[in-house]
């Protein structure tokens, strides 16, 4: 077990190196002038100044030198200070956000985290339940309906689904508005009498005992949660169902039935735990996806998280910002993968021994 975890941890730097390589590789598509946005706020457009910046930040040096500078930063020959360096948390300057990319991420992350926090329970709980039920009632009515639901959900683009629920629940019924907070609520949240402990509005509201704000924040998240759930349910249902079906065909399940165990116990105690092993991977990656910002859902609902910020930056062709977000996203994904793999070893002895 320990050996497995150590082996897995040793792989971590390699994967992180992979992400940086691909992001840096993508940066090479940009001209040196565009790349100078990694170091300077305003890109000057006069002839001499551009040359100066390229020289000053070493953008004409060999690629491996530039990669190193990009990683750890570089001493600015003029001011003598160290600038840049993603390992120092300096991801460059975001033209769109008018602030450093790192602080833009820090500013947007709570919104995404809050959405993920609230979405993850319904997604995984209901998704797995649907899958198990569907497998247990294989080829019966429930299963057929669930499968139809799954394949339609699988084919439903998030943005179409999102627009449709907005059309009905917002434009028609005015129940659940887009955005993150209503104007009155955000005025209170940003005022002095409201302490922002976590920057997750729902939790802050509870800590401040402002239940009206809690409800307002939750109201804004219901449609995004519904949209995310629908798509992910479809996926989880498929995976859980096929895994459960496979397990139900195993000999030890037949043995359990043969020795007279009630069906409930056969399913809950013998079949389900083993069927959920492959589901852990998918569920873990789903959480990572949610934390990395769900670009389209956040954009449809104008929810101010990581994903919508990345989309905004992309539309305005602010590559440095988009790459910063991608770096963050990729890192989250790798860490989540690590957690999933370790969890995997904990629950499945075949993995850690094999």
């Amino acid at each position, binding site marked *: 077990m320990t050996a497995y975890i150590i082996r897995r941890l040793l792989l971590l730097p390699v*994967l992180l190196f*992979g*992400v940086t*390589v*691909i*992001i840096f590789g*993508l940066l090479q*598509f*940009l001209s040196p002038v565009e790349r100078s946005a990694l170091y300077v706020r305003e890109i000057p457009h006069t002839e001499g100044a551009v040359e100066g910046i390229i020289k000053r930040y070493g953008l004409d040096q060999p690629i491996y030198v530039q990669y190193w500078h990009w990683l750890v930063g570089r001493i600015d020959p003029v001011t003598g200070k160290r600038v840049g360096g993603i390992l120092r948390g300096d991801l460059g300057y975001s033209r769109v956000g008018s602030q450093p990319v790192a602080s833009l991420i820090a500013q947007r992350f709570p919104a995404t985290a809050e959405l993920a926090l609230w979405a993850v329970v319904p997604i995984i709980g209901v998704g797995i339940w649907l899958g198990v039920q569907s497998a247990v009632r*294989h080829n019966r009515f429930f299963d057929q309906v669930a499968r139809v639901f799954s*394949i*339609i959900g*699988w*084919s*439903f*683009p*998030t*943005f*179409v689904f999102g*627009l*449709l629920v*907005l*059309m009905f629940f*917002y*434009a*028609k019924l005015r129940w659940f508005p*887009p955005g993150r907070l209503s104007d009155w609520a955000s005025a209170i949240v940003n005022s002095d009498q409201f302490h922002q402990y976590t920057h997750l509005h729902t939790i802050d509201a509870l800590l401040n005992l402002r239940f009206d704000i809690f409800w307002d924040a939750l109201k804004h998240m219901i449609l995004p949660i519904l949209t995310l759930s629908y798509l992910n349910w479809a996926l989880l249902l498929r995976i859980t169902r*096929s895994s459960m*079906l*496979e397990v*139900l*065909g195993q000999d030890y399940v037949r043995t359990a039935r043969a020795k007279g165990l009630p069906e409930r116990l056969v399913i809950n105690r013998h079949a389900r735990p083993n069927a959920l092993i492959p589901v852990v991977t998918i569920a873990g990656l789903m959480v990572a*996806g949610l934390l*990395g910002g769900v*670009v*389209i859902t956040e*954009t*449809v609902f*104008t929810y101010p998280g990581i994903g919508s910020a*990345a*989309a905004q*930056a*992309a*539309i305005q*062709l*602010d*590559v440095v910002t*988009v*790459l910063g*977000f*991608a770096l963050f*996203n*990729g890192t989250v*994904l*790798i860490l989540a993968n690590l957690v999933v793999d370790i969890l995997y070893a904990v629950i499945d002895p075949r993995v850690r021994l094999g």
Partner: protein
Amino acid sequence: MMNNSSIQNSGIPALRKVGWLEKLVGPDNYRAFRALITTPAAILGLVLLAIFAFVAIAAPIIAPPASSRDPYRIPRDGFSPDPRPMGSEWKRNPPPLPFWWRFIMKTDGWIHILGTASGQWDIFYGVIWGTRTAFRVGITITLATLVIGVLVGSIAAYYGGIVDNILMRIVDIFLTLPFLMAALILATILVPRFGKSIYPAVISLIGFGWMGYARLIRGDILSLKEREFVLAARALGARGFRILFRHIVPNAIFPTLVVASMDVGSYVLSFAALAFLGIGVEVGYADWGQLLSFARNWISSLADYWYIVVWPGFALVLFVLAWNLVGDALRDALDPRMRAVRR
């Protein structure tokens, strides 16, 4: 449906009649083919695909373009920002009337059958010509990713050792970024170089779409390259690329081909998603995702302007659904793990 499974499992040679098609394509592929024409869901998918193909081919007849030089440009009726409802009259410079219109409607006045989006882009044209865009984009991306994936995967598997290691690590690196995020970045980088067109989005989806096929065919070739026919080819003096691309790849490619062909739908979906975000095609290009993006300016009045969401959305969902229905049936038929269960 699985009347041959007991025979297969018992190891007794098949006594049933083997048709010419089964002989031609082999038992596994034949089973996949049978699943296609016997599963109701798959039939529905095929019918839907046929309808879409018809619409795509007949687009110039169903909705004759305003300018034959640039048929993918949706004709617009003025510039007013407010969408107009279905069936409203075409006021300014209507495009040529399709011949069937007079027979059905008995008038010469062309209307906005599905209404207009903001900027008076005609939704009907967008949906019809968008079908063509969908096929073009989906098939282009699938073919290109398939070629790259098969090249990388087969070379890695055949040469093995350090070549394999390097190529597969490259695959791993490409997989570290989430697909849509990666495509978003590449498209952002490519837009200033290609201008607003379908190419930035298509190229970026290709750039981050091929890894799955590389892995898939690599696995198949790894087991295949130890077989006798490869040895025979080598004994006959064939070497390197000839063995690989004349003998091994044709025998290993089928599963990858099936998986890839069923991914057309999801590529179209990703492309539409990028277009919806506003990356790629120029405003007014006939593409479903782009049409849907018009709705973003009208979120609070979508109850009145529902037709800007519903029609292009309907087309996109049905298109993706059709591919998924066919793909699901195929995957079920080809998945060996599911065989025991289905009996």
